[in-house]
């Protein structure tokens, strides 16, 4: 499965949103209805799925779907 699809599935599962809402520009809090604890849970879910620790200073920048995908690609994950 492509990285984008894995990320989308995790977001759908964690936030209970529809897959078609999970666009690259979508903000977790503003567009997908996440609260701050949801964003922490999302980061934990990404860490578990990709076996990569995401430090807090990185995590706070991951506010959109696209930012997560770019970040993980930058870590050579999912390629």
């Amino acid at each position, binding site marked *: 499965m492509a990285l984008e699809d894995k990320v989308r599935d995790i977001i759908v599962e964690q936030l209970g949103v529809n897959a078609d809402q999970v666009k690259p520009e979508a903000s977790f809090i503003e567009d997908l209805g996440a609260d701050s*604890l949801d964003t922490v849970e999302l980061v*934990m879910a990404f860490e578990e799925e990709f076996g990569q620790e995401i430090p807090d200073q990185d995590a706070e920048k991951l506010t959109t779907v696209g930012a997560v995908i770019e970040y993980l690609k930058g870590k050579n994950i999912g390629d």
Partner: protein
Amino acid sequence: MGCLDGKIALVTGAGRGIGRAVAEKLASEGADLALCDVKVEWLAETEAAVKGMGRKVISVAADVSKAAEVDAAVDAVQAACGRIDILVNNAGITRDGYLARMSEEDWDAVLDINLKGTFLMTKAVAKLMMKQKSGNIINIASIIGLIGNAGQCNYAASKAGAIALTKSTAKELASRNIRANAIAPGFIETKMTDALPEEIRKKMLDAIPMRRFGLPADIAHAVLFLASDASAYLTGQVLSVNGGMVM
């Protein structure tokens, strides 16, 4: 039929005293048990009692003040049981002494087990409970965490800290259908209180309107209440179980 049928409960400090009474009470209401103490040998009697009630049981060893040991223990419980519905943070120690003479070592030992241990265990189990979108955390604090005590500044601080930790946990996780409450036992007859001098025991007894010391079973009943749906709308609270010693 018990009110905890199908539930998995993890109890720390389950080898004796309040922890053992709690484990047996939860088992008697149908819960399967994960028992934790510093050494698995210490859990043999509790394990036998729980098995005797026909419940499943797994025993794990951990020093709750060490994150790696806590994480390994929780992983083992998850692997064996699949989930954790109820966490009872009961493991605790005393190292009494007057503040002016208290060593840094005694301060750290008590804070590490009683407060940091509760944090580490809660952190490890809360991750599971958040995924489950349900859970119930019960922290055994103390009357001393509410009123302080001469000769127990370390213990008092650790238990007051545990109460504040409980309230923060409750606020943070309520939206995930996880409740967190504390129990503040008064003077309970256990190995911990056996160690106190007779004159202190007498003074304590005089301060208890019900004129008896508490028993581990008194605390176990309170834990059962908090662990069951009978307390479904209760979170972030401190339940004092002390024979009226403090009101």
